[in-house]
């Protein structure tokens, strides 16, 4: 097991040597103002119980991303700028030859229920996941996770891995691939758990197979636009006698935009059955990013929509400039998942759908720029209030800059891929993340969806609706039959009568 802990100090905050004291058995951190990343790497045989090992063995790759919906967290900082929508995202690639085998298909769902929450609605990857080429994807809104137990378990004891406070993390990633045979668990905390900063003791591992690396870093201005330059102190706890100064730079896939480059999401009331997602962008968010000169950039939004809300792919993939301009959209670039236009929610087995939209930007910067995405709601199950709440996570909004030639992204120790949206671009694309507006408490919008009101104790309970319908149909039928009967009885002699009179 290898644990890597990175403290990332903002440029403005001071640092003195007493804040990080490396002793023989531990590193003491005191009141350190920083964002933190903890990355734990374990071998395939250390990944826990039989179920976990079975599922990992049947997979070629598994990439799990969980992000907190709360906005009480701070800003993302370079090089940890990338985001996913709030909730649990799973990317799953079954091993060749095992694809479609029913038992294994259910395994990944059992794993999710065991690791995260027992009530996750997931049958197997063929029915519940959506597919994008050879990868299967799943999403569920999961405000809180129960990963602590699992991670503490694989950490075996009370090392820095076990005491990291995973339940307070802004985001957690789990990555497994068959080539490396290792499972990597990483967490990101944008702010210390204490107002005074991080104060913790990082102890050396109790056996010499394990390793604990710590970095206290800050970013500096890089020479090349695509690069991030980092400097600070590095050390291996229990091995090194002192922290060593370091300075290095690397090309980075993800970059953050300035804090004033923000977006917020709302749904104008009344939302009805056809809510319109409104993405409001600040002027700074619309400014062309400081990307390398040979790149072309475009603003994008990546929507993660649970099955009860969906876009009409035919409506959104239109090339009609009037429609697109009126919504400040350029084009629908990619869509995957459940896009059936008619089925009620409880008949949709897939978790939902993903939409990559290219957004229009104005030529001169206005105070605020709204992009609107027309969406539709499915019928949900009846309820006793007549309404059901449907949460819609905020999308991820970013500038994507594609380079003609450019650098490969291979040598970044903090790189992050498999976010759902990054794979829709070429390998040399750089992303500049627009920050979700911090003033809003949650990065999930709750919609009130009107459903059939189950009037359990009132006049219009289900039985009454049933009987009322039956009664209306039977009475209607009898009325028409009676009219026809009258006609039939009086009708037969009539033709002769009429003929006589003619």
């Amino acid at each position: 097991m290898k644990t890597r802990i990175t403290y990332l100090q903002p440029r403005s905050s001071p640092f003195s040597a007493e804040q990080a004291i490396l002793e023989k058995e531990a590193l003491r951190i005191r009141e350190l103002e920083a964002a933190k990343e903890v990355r734990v790497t374990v071998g395939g045989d250390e990944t826990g119980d039989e179920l976990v090992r079975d599922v990992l063995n049947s997979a070629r790759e598994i990439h799990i991303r969980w992000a907190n919906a709360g906005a009480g967290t701070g800003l993302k900082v370079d090089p940890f700028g990338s985001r996913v929508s709030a909730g649990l995202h799973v990317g799953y690639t079954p091993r060749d030859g095992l694809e479609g085998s029913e038992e294994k298909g259910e395994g990944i769902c059992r794993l999710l229920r065991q690791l995260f929450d027992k009530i996750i609605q997931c049958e197997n990857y063929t029915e519940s996941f959506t597919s994008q080429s050879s990868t299967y994807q799943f999403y569920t809104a999961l405000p809180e996770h129960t990963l602590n137990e699992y991670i503490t378990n694989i950490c075996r004891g009370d090392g820095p891995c076990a005491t990291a406070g995973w339940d307070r993390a802004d985001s957690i990633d789990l990555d497994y691939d068959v080539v490396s045979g290792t499972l990597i668990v990483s967490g990101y905390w944008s702010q210390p758990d204490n107002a005074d900063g991080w104060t913790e003791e990082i102890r050396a591992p109790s056996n010499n197979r394990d390793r604990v690396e710590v970095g206290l870093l800050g970013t500096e201005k890089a020479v090349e636009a695509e690069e991030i330059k980092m400097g600070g102190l590095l050390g291996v706890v229990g091995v090194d006698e002192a922290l060593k100064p370091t300075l290095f730079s690397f090309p980075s896939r993800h970059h953050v935009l300035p804090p004033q480059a923000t977006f917020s999401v709302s749904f104008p009331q009344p939302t009805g059955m056809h809510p319109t997602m409104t993405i409001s962008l600040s002027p700074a968010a619309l400014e062309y990013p400081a990307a390398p000169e040979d790149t072309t950039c475009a603003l994008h939004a990546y929507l993660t929509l649970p099955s009860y809300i969906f876009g009409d792919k035919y409506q959104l993939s239109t090339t009609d400039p009037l429609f697109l301009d009126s919504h400040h959209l350029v084009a629908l670039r990619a869509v995957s998942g459940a896009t059936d236009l008619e089925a009620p929610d409880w008949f949709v087995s897939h978790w939902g759908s993903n939409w990559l939209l290219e957004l229009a930007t104005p030529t001169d910067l206005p105070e605020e720029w709204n992009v609107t995405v027309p969406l539709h709601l499915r019928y949900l199950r009846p309820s006793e209030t007549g309404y059901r709440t449907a949460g819609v996570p905020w999308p991820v909004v970013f500038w994507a800059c594609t380079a003609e030639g450019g650098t490969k992204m291979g040598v970044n120790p903090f790189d992050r891929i498999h976010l759902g949206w990054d794979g829709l671009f070429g390998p040399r694309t750089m992303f500049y993340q627009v920050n979700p507006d911090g003033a809003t408490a949650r990065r999930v919008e709750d919609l009130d969806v009107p459903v059939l009101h189950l009037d359990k104790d009132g006049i219009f309970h289900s039985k009454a609706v049933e009987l009322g319908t039956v009664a209306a149909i039977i009475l209607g039928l009898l009325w028409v039959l009676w009219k026809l009967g009258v006609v039939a009885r009086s009708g037969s002699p009539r033709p002769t009568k009429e003929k006589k009179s003619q």
Partner: protein
Amino acid sequence: MSSKMTSFFQTPSLVYGSAIALRVILLFYGAWQDAHSAVKYTDIDYLVFTDAARYVSQGVSPYARDTYRYTPLLAWLLLPTTWSGPSFLFAFGKALFALSDVLAGWLIARSLVSAYGMDAPRALKYASVWLLNPMVANISTRGSSEGLLGVLVIALLWAVLRRRVILAGIILGISVHFKIYPFIYGVSIIWWLDREHDGSSTKTTPKPTTSTILSFITPPRIILTLTSLTTFLLLNLLMYSLYDTPFLQHTYLHHLTRIDHRHNFSPYSTLLYLSAAGEVQGNFESLAFIPQLLLSVIVIPLILAKKSLPGAMLAQTFAFVTFNKVCTSQYFLWYLIFLPFYLPTSSMRRNPRFGGIVAALWVVGQALWLQQGYNLEFLGLSSFVPGLFLASIGFFAVNVWILGVIVEDVSSS
């Protein structure tokens, strides 16, 4: 009626000219609105048809387009909309549907003259209920294919009234292939097509010696049955050989297994929502076809067809739509097309005040429902129960009452 109005209907070119002009204006207006507003005049269904036609032009199945639930014939007919060339080619289908409207109106007028002995101006006046109806022109020019079905159904009636049995059989086969529901007309036509009506005998009374069953089996009835079944089967075999299961699934089976129950005018709508969600134990909605088919396929044809074939077809269609599990406003066109045959002898025309009440109730019934639908769709209010439920039952009651009036009127015509 003023003399000006009378002279208008005495000049067929004026009536047809107006009908065509109305549609041409709407086509141009639609093109203008589509080009200048993000809110489109063109119906979503038209985009489904033209997308399907584009798939066909690329050698792909039209069912590659989601929600294409029609015969491939429709996509084939709209192939010109996929041709590269001037942009007005895109409106080819709309023009075709609008032209079908006018053709249907012309056939209505011809039938009124030939089968009812009406004078031409009077026939044109009644045909104008369809020809100059803004709702009909609007629906066609927005690109809904109902006009195509209208002309098929009226051509069927015209062919039967002219005793062109083979032609009638072919048209019936095509119509059923197109939209299933015209099969109900097969029953009334066969029942109507007795020796008195089939043109084989001038005798008004059948020979009492022949057994009823044998006398029922007449050559025209056999020919009609065989030609319609053959046409229907050949078309389906052709489409099945080309497009396989998706053709069967989307054109026919979908209607049996559909799980979408977005609110609609049908009285079953609320119950279907409840039962799809597993909230009711009963399974009544699966028996919904019984009252519907009992009326539209058995009782109405038997009692009304020989009194007035178009009257019976109107009553059948009205019953079919009213008792259907799904009902949207374009289904109303299915029976509106028979109004020119019904109105001349109807109590609604004899007593305009009564006619006004009937029309008002029909409109108010819809308006109340639309109000609840608006509350749901746009205001997001939970108006399923009691709002939409009561509104759809109310509209059903109005329709059933009107059906009773139609039955009385048709039998005394």
